[in-house]
């Protein structure tokens, strides 16, 4: 290769790199803008939010806004409910989905095709189809409205998680499990003490996605836990939008309190997040 063509190729690379950044930077700024404005709004008094000036930098009113929000609705209490529900849900759902994934990865059994068909069939089935009977059953037949059980148990069914765990377990060396079996170790002990520890990174990815799903869940908690003391944080915040009970600054402070912890987790555990989401599609 002549030095001339090498120079022109590195120039072409530089040109492409500039075009790439010139395009991507404004797009990234547009994408960050709503999050940035959420933070800015949460630190402003309402006469600042509703002023004709363009305010793009944070002020110092965050704690006043939190106080305003807490007076209008017991938001801290609602956050307590959301945290407890999300933690319990995540633990139960991880157990449930990894047990099912394990069964599909390790055993041959009668009706296996049927179970796999159920899982794939429900991925694309709209949740709307089960919503009404679920509500009637939980609220009227079981009389469980406004309880933690209502928030935690019905959403436990989850198809993508099972596929993810089945995939994770089938990629493991099965000789290991068979060797344990030859030693006389029971299957549930192999699952708990050999397979699960090996699956730790996948369990982390799954747990993060499930925690997030529970934390942000809106429609089901809105319907089933509508009593003020039983509301999750997103539902409590949603009831304030469009009313004048709490200032916009207060609502935005609530939005920040819901979002900021998840953003921190996202930054710290981005690899697991991305793995969990990508696993939905890549097999």
């Amino acid at each position, binding site marked *: 290769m002549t030095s001339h063509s090498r120079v022109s190729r590195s120039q072409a690379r530089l040109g492409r790199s500039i075009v790439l950044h010139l395009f991507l930077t404004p797009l990234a700024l547009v994408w960050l803008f709503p999050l940035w404005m959420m933070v800015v709004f949460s630190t402003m008094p309402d006469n600042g939010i509703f002023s004709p000036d363009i305010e793009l930098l944070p002020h110092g009113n965050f704690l006043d806004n939190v106080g305003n929000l807490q007076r209008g609705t017991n938001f801290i209490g609602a956050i307590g409910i959301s945290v407890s529900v999300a933690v319990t849900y995540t633990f139960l759902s991880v157990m449930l989905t990894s047990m099912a994934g394990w069964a599909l990865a390790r055993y041959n059994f009668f009706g296996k095709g049927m179970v796999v068909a159920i899982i794939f069939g429900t991925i694309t089935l709209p949740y709307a189809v089960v919503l009404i009977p679920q509500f009637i059953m939980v609220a009227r037949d079981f009389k469980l409205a406004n309880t933690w059980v209502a928030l935690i148990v019905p959403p436990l069914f989850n198809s993508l998680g099972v596929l993810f765990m089945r995939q994770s377990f089938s990629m493991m060396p099965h000789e290991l499990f068979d060797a344990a079996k030859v030693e006389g170790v029971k299957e549930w002990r192999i699952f708990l003490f050999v397979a699960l520890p090996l699956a730790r990174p996948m369990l982390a990815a799954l747990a993060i996605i499930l925690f997030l799903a529970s934390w942000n869940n809106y429609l089901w908690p809105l319907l089933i836990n509508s009593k003020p003391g039983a509301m999750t944080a*997103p539902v409590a915040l949603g009831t304030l939008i469009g009313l004048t009970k709490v200032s916009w600054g207060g609502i935005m402070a609530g939005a920040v309190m819901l979002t900021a912890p998840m953003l921190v987790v996202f930054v710290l555990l981005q690899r697991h997040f991305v793995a969990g989401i990508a696993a939905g599609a890549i097999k």
Partner: protein
Amino acid sequence: MRYQNATAYRFLAPYLLIFSIFWLWPIIDSFLISFQATRTVPWRFAPTFNWGRLIGDPAFFNALKNTLLILVIQVPVMISLAIVMAVLLNSPLLKARGLFRFAFFAPVVVGEVAYSAVFRLMFNLDYGIINKLLNSIGLPSVDWFTNVTPAMAVIMMAVTWRWAGYNAIILLAGLQSIPEDVYEAATLDRVSKVKQFFYITLPLLKPIIVFCAVLSIIGTMQLFTEPFLITERGGPGGGTETLGLLLYRQGFRSLNFGYASAIAYTMAGLAIAISLVQIWLTREPK
């Protein structure tokens, strides 16, 4: 291999139990309820009561039209944007990759309520930052929420903002599974980057693009929170009412479970049709 029915079903039991109670039975029940008149006590079997109402209900056709309109505009825009994001994030020339990834992926963790509140405030007529910015470059304010077209645009922008990065994550994983030497060979053959994108990347990515499109269509079809909170219960005047919102209004405001179930099954029918199209699109060529 020998069958281990007892062991397998012991591991599957909790999962199948939850499935049977909270999915299998509701799927059947919802179908049965759609054939009952549910505003009388006790409910009575009336096969054409809800379905007959559905095919003559302007509110249903309005919600169907709005939902399909959002689908055909928002989903292609978002998927195209997600492909662009994924391809550019995958470029070896990119600096500060972590910052760009954060910018596009961060909306994935933001809850519907939080971002609906922000979008509603940003697009406020008199004090919203969007109108202020438009004014500052000499453009007139847009009355975002009292006219149907701009209200729809806000919904579509909000959904696109929230979900483009999610799809980009899936597509990026797909891109990274394409072997590097395919591109190296193409580069040696002096195939331009643009041609590589259209003749290598897109065809190899097709199954994943279709998967993203189907998940997005099914998600958007059930759109509820954004028109509920951002445009205030599907306003202006039902102009952004979606099927999801109509179902909520009929089922949980008017407590008309029969009619709401008929709406739910219409959505399921659409979803099944779309899934069949997906299977047809990604079938292996014989």
